[in-house]
């Protein structure tokens, strides 16, 4: 459907300037035309130079993935055409700066060469405004009213009238230049009534979620792709009476989080794989001393420094198994921008409720993409605070690590009654170091009982879905998915159903502790079960096999970019054939 349903990709060297902003303006403009948007970006790890790309997918219905190929490709320079031509639709539209002539464009494609550089540099003497001339041309070619871009420019540079004016001039110049061209393609924007939507990135949604949950102390260290969370917290958390800390390393970050939480504040840190590795010793301590905390790991391609600006789902092992000793912890994974907000709120709730470390596994693609999402009503949120000891109901004396049915013991807060020592050594109920044989067994059981409480969270708070089962109770093919891969799976299963295939999906948001019985039932109800994930070793598949004793078919890719819908659809088709043959 070429009207209101297409994918635009913008590419060019970052030295060209304004590539990502071009895409962001397109996304906002399309959203203001009443459409849903979903963006995806990759940028170079170099300090200056290198190819950046932003892709904007739009439709009248909610979109869950970034789009397999570009229907409309906008190239700032020749290299960007070479980089993106393989993912350019054979009968798509190529818009390029006419300072170069793209080679090997399929005859089926429509090509518009427009002298963006010349207009900006020579005619307008404003090379920075090239992206605005591109937006003007886009407006002329695809019917997106220029007034929408004008409004965006005016609000983006509010209070800086001369920048607004020069950008409006550039927008107009690009518009008029493209108006001279003959329209030869079918893509078109048909504005619809505005919908009530927010546009947020995954990382922004996480910041808002943390503040909504009551986070008062944040500690972090710069690392891609989580540095923007540190910057946001350093800027905004003080406005909410909180204290953000940029510390000397990730060990210090998690240490400060534990110290703050021990002293009664809700606290979190945000990092990526390398920083998370440094934190694991303290995560083990948090489990032993029973200190609530939230740790976000926005995964990127590894091992080691890997590909810092590329996405992967390869930190599941270290999230679920990392740390020395038997470490109870909760691992959650959001899959959408909206999910980033709510999962963060639930992460704090679970940490407070269970007095456990809660790890959020995000990823680079989700962290930095933007989506239109439904408005968030803060009054509708349920916020849980830890069970604090206030000096009552303990006739036989306060015991910090009192054995209870749920495993959770009321927590005394410095400044208040019940002074105790938070212990990393194995300890008795009072918190005194103790290594009697029975004591270690009993206290380990106590700490792990809290995982059962974690699994009951969704029963008590039905707003949270630790898992979602899409489609029929029984099918030829089942797909188990976690994290941001869920979007591509959702679209692939929809297309598979339309083809008449029998398919269901199980989307896990709570990765650990695993809802073992649900996953078992799902696997036993399906002919074949596919588990696609962006890692080489099949990390969640291993966890599922280990926890359920049942097998799944792993589908692994490590290319640094998210799955395409088509890749998953093809895998579903293959398994469907096998399942039908085996019926």
């Amino acid at each position, binding site marked *: 459907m070429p009207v209101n349903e297409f994918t635009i990709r913008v590419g060019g060297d970052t030295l060209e300037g304004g590539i990502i902003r071009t895409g962001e303006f397109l996304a906002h403009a399309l959203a203001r035309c009443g459409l849903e948007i979903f963006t995806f970006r990759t940028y170079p790890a170099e300090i200056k130079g290198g190819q950046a790309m932003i892709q904007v997918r739009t439709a009248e219905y909610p979109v869950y993935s970034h789009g397999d190929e570009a229907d409309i490709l906008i190239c700032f320079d020749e290299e960007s055409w070479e980089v993106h031509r393989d993912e350019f639709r054979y009968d798509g539209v190529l818009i390029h700066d006419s300072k170069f002539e793209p080679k090997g464009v399929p005859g089926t494609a429509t090509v518009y060469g427009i002298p963006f550089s010349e207009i900006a540099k020579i005619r307008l003497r404003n090379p920075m405004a090239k992206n605005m001339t591109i937006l003007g041309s886009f407006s002329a070619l695809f019917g997106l009213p220029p007034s929408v871009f004008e409004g965006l420019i005016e609000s983006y540079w509010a209070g800086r009238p001369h920048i607004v004016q020069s950008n409006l001039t550039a927008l107009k110049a690009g518009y008029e230049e493209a108006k001279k061209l003959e329209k030869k393609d079918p893509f078109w924007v048909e504005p619809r009534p505005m919908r009530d939507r*927010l546009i947020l990135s995954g990382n922004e949604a996480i910041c808002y979620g943390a503040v909504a949950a009551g986070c008062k102390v944040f500690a972090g260290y710069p690392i891609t792709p989580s540095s923007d969370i540190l910057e946001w917290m350093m800027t*905004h958390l003080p406005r909410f009476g909180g204290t953000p800390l940029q510390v000397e390393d990730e060990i210090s970050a998690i240490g400060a989080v534990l110290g703050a939480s021990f002293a009664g504040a809700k606290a979190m840190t945000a990092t990526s794989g390398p920083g998370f590795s440094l934190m694991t010793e*303290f995560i083990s301590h948090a489990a032993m001393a029973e200190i609530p905390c939230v740790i976000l790991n926005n995964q990127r391609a590894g091992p080691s420094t890997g590909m810092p600006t590329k996405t992967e789902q390869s930190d599941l092992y270290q999230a679920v198994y990392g740390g020395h000793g038997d470490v109870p912890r909760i691992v959650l994974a959001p899959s959408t921008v909206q999910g980033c907000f709510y999962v963060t709120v639930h992460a704090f709730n679970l940490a407070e409720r269970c007095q456990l470390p809660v790890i959020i596994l995000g990823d680079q693609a989700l962290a930095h993409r933007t989506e239109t999402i439904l408005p968030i009503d803060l009054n509708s949120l349920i916020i849980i605070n830890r069970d604090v000891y206030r000096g009552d109901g303990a006739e036989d004396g306060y015991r910090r690590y009192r054995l209870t049915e749920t495993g959770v013991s009321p927590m005394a807060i410095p400044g208040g009654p019940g002074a105790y020592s938070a212990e990393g050594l194995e300890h008795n109920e009072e918190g005194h170091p103790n290594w009697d044989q029975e004591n270690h067994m009993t206290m380990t059981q106590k700490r792990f009982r809290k995982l059962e409480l974690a699994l009951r969270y969704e029963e008590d708070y039905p707003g949270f879905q630790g898992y979602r089962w899409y489609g029929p109770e029984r099918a030829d093919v089942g797909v188990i998915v976690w994290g941001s891969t869920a979007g591509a799976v959702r679209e692939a299963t929809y297309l598979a159903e339309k083809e008449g295939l029998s398919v269901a999906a199980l989307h896990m948001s709570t990765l650990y502790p695993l809802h073992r019985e649900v996953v078992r039932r799902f696997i036993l109800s399906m002919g074949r079960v596919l588990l696609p994930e962006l890692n080489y070793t099949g990390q969640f598949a291993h966890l599922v096999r280990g926890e359920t004793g049942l097998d799944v078919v792993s589908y692994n890719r490590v290319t640094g970019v998210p799955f395409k819908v088509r890749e998953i659809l093809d895998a579903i088709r293959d398994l469907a054939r096998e399942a039908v043959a085996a019926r």
Partner: protein
Amino acid sequence: MAVDAKVREKYKSEVKPIWCPGCGDFGVLTATFMALGALNLPPEQVVIVSGIGCSGRFPGFTTCYGFHSLHGRTMPVALGVKAANPDLTVIAVGGDGDTLAIGGNHFMHACRRNINLTYLLLDNNLYALTKGQASPTSFPTQVTDSTPFGSYEADVEPCALAILFGATFVAREFSARAKKTAEIIVQAIEHPGFSLVHILSPCVTFFDTYDLYKQKIAELPEGYDPTDLYGAVRTATDPERKWVGVLYRGHRPTFEEMIPKIRQKAEEKLGPGDLQAMLDRRRV
């Protein structure tokens, strides 16, 4: 300094210290009880953060709040405690390996942050809990189980480091002088900013330095100027003597003083936080 023995008792927990008889750390524990008693601080207002080592067990021997953290990580935890509740009195306790080897990075940044806390560095010149290996304050010629032929490295002087890293109160004492140590701890707690008390605390089991330090220590002379930063560094690194007393005293805004200042600046520039309004502004 008047100390009432009864007041002191309220800081002593029922847990008996596991240190070897004669360990220097007993002196520091006693001195700490005396100092807390002199200041009449309620135990629930005090947080004692420790790392790992013989000194790591310190918090459990008191009736104060405690946080027995990880090896080298007292400072991150103490920073977090202060960020959450600046009104608490925080005392960090670390050994020489804890503070200067595995925790060296945190130590440096804690000094420069000028967090209003008192750091008791219990220096016994080796790792004792792991039964006698060389530490950053071991003497270069000192033979230990991990340096049977002497050390490759020079030793470090923690007071000089702390002064140059930006600590605003740096003092040294000897654990055998419990009362003097208590007086210094009182001054350190009262000082607004990062206070290091370097306490020579001999290990009777693996490297008994009582006699050595009894000979080597000397009280700072009358008229010593603790505000002279480079003079203090020279005094701290004197190869002939271990000078005891307040080596350095400076003044800079503390971490705790910066918290409301930063909040005020953020509010002046961006307004008080209203999350619903922020979200609503992100409407398409």
